[in-house]
């Protein structure tokens, strides 16, 4: 009962090219498709990275806008957030929202291959872009531009910027941001929602690790070094006292009172009403305090702590990749 006429086919003999054939859909085809899809995002992001990198190099750590002075390095972590929100989150959410995953997955390519090609290409682009920027930022040593810094200065070795601009760690933030966005987009499947949740999730996870986990690790992962001074010399500024902790060390406990056997004591209540440095010191000695001490992590341990944090982010990255892969698999079986 097929039709007698075939309108389209009756066009006759034209210069019709024979159909193209290939043994399978290659990785190159998937890469080309991904590049075409992400063309604008790739160009704009690369441009932003290059401009920011130039600013970091040329500003020599200080930009003045009217009364406002800042070190552009402090904005480097924001780029990881940019990658998370604008690259990661829309990657799968856009396909799901516009239903184009149905188009792609019903061609001669498996969903898993397509996903792996996309993640490998864009993940690779994140590594290259963020890696270059992180090298540029990381090579700007903290003490080169900032004078009068202390251990609380963000660009000191254990300070927020100094700690986080270690290139491997900075790169891990960007890669984590990307895969966090991908995983969130894979689960929530709406572009705007995915971008919002990714932004919130990225900020929350980074903040929690920064203000909760990192100080805890610094205090507990390795027993801090304890520097002690006898109470007798207290209040007299001794030029011979060791300069610890230095500005690049991390202070865990700035002031401890130690007894005869080195045990930590509370500040004696009897000495609270006492005034005058020497009188206080004498009062404390009378109450059993032998020395004052400071607990700190020396600069030499910096990379140990950074490596532990790097490991935590690697675990998070693997979890996000697994979540994205699992959700694509599940979509096909449920």
């Amino acid at each position: 009962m097929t039709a007698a006429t075939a309108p389209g086919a009756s066009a006759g003999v034209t210069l019709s090219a024979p159909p193209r054939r290939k043994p399978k859909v290659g990785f190159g085809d998937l890469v080309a498709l991904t590049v075409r899809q992400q063309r604008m995002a790739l160009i704009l992001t690369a441009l932003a990275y290059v401009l920011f990198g130039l600013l970091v190099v040329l500003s020599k750590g200080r930009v003045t806008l009217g009364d406002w002075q800042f070190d552009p390095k402090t904005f480097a972590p924001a780029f990881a957030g940019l990658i998370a929100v604008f690259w990661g989150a829309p990657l799968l959410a856009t396909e799901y929202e516009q239903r184009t995953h149905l188009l792609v997955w019903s061609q001669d390519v498996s969903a898993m291959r397509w996903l792996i090609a996309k993640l490998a290409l864009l993940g690779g682009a994140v590594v290259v872009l963020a890696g270059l920027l992180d090298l540029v930022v990381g090579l700007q040593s903290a003490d080169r531009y900032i004078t009068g810094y202390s251990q609380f200065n963000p660009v000191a070795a254990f300070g927020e910027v100094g700690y986080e601009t270690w290139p491997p760690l900075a790169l891990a933030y960007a890669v984590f941001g990307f895969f966090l966005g991908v995983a969130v987009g894979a689960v929530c499947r709406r572009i705007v929602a995915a971008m919002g949740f990714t932004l919130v999730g990225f900020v929350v996870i980074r903040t929690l690790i920064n203000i909760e986990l990192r100080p805890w690790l610094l205090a507990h992962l390795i027993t801090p070094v304890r520097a002690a001074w006898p109470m007798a010399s207290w209040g007299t500024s001794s030029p011979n006292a060791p300069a610890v902790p230095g500005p690049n060390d991390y202070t865990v406990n700035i002031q401890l009172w130690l007894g005869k056997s080195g045990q930590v004591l509370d500040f004696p209540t009897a000495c609270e009403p006492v005034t005058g440095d020497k009188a206080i010191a004498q009062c404390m000695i009378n109450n059993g305090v032998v020395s004052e001490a400071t607990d700190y992590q020396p600069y030499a341990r910096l990379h140990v702590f950074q490596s532990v944090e790097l490991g935590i982010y690697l675990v998070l990255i693997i979890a996000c990749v697994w979540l994205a892969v699992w959700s694509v698999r599940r979509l096909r079986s449920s």
Partner: protein
Amino acid sequence: MTANIDDQPAEQFALQVSGLGKEYRSRLRGNNWALRECTFGLSAGKVVALVGANGAGKTTLLSILAGLLSPSEGVVRLGGARQEPNRIAFVAQEKPLYRHFSVRDMLKVGQRLNRVWDDERAKRWLRRFDIPLDRPCGRLSGGQQAHVSFAIAVGSRPSVLLLDEPLSNLDPLARRDVTQELLGEVADTGLTVLLSTHVVAELGGVADHLLLLSRGTLLVDSDADDLLTEHVYYVGPRATEPPCQGEIVKASHSTSQSSFLVRVGPTDAPASVAAPWTTRPVSLEDLVIAYLESDRAGVAVAA
């Protein structure tokens, strides 16, 4: 090659499905079979219509056949005696395209993601419907977007083309043109088309075969011609029984008149009926609607 079904060689079937089922598991809403024990074969070079009420499992079935969904049970086999590898193309109901891609770019996507690509065939479809190649897909009308989807599907030279509600975005004229063009492809290349549709009225003269799904099970699996000859519509005085043997698909009664749609066996002679009963010819549309209605009413109807 593959196992036989109904003693017919597998080569005759472009697509064979046996015992196909899909269970959606949900902790909240409980488990639910969207598709159960579906067994059928699609002969090569035929247009097969898949009809059923909303939620009958049409999209689930097509998604499984398209490889987008893995079945809970059963197997799907591709067959046919073509020179080329047997492949399935699928056009989803939403006719999804990358909105910022030009039509030309979308064809490029089709070329990149398929092992076989016939650019000329895809472009011929677009020329036929005057689709501009340089316009972004997002700026095309719904009907034009549908044509781009069809062009990609046709360009990938499938042995089986699955279309989910292909006519839903099209005006009546375009519907006719699309069905004609599809029939042309079928005639030219031995393509097998399985299309789900709500536009039952336009099945006549298009569908060679009918699959009717109801609540996940296959109610009708029959050639359209056979269906038309096997069913008779009787009209006569009010009665509780039709004037002949057969299975009542649908019965309706008014105060003075009764009408029965009866599935008579192919051996019975349906036309021989005594007055005052008269017979009326049945259209494919009548049949589909009667089956859907009777199924909704809960009348037991065996396929």
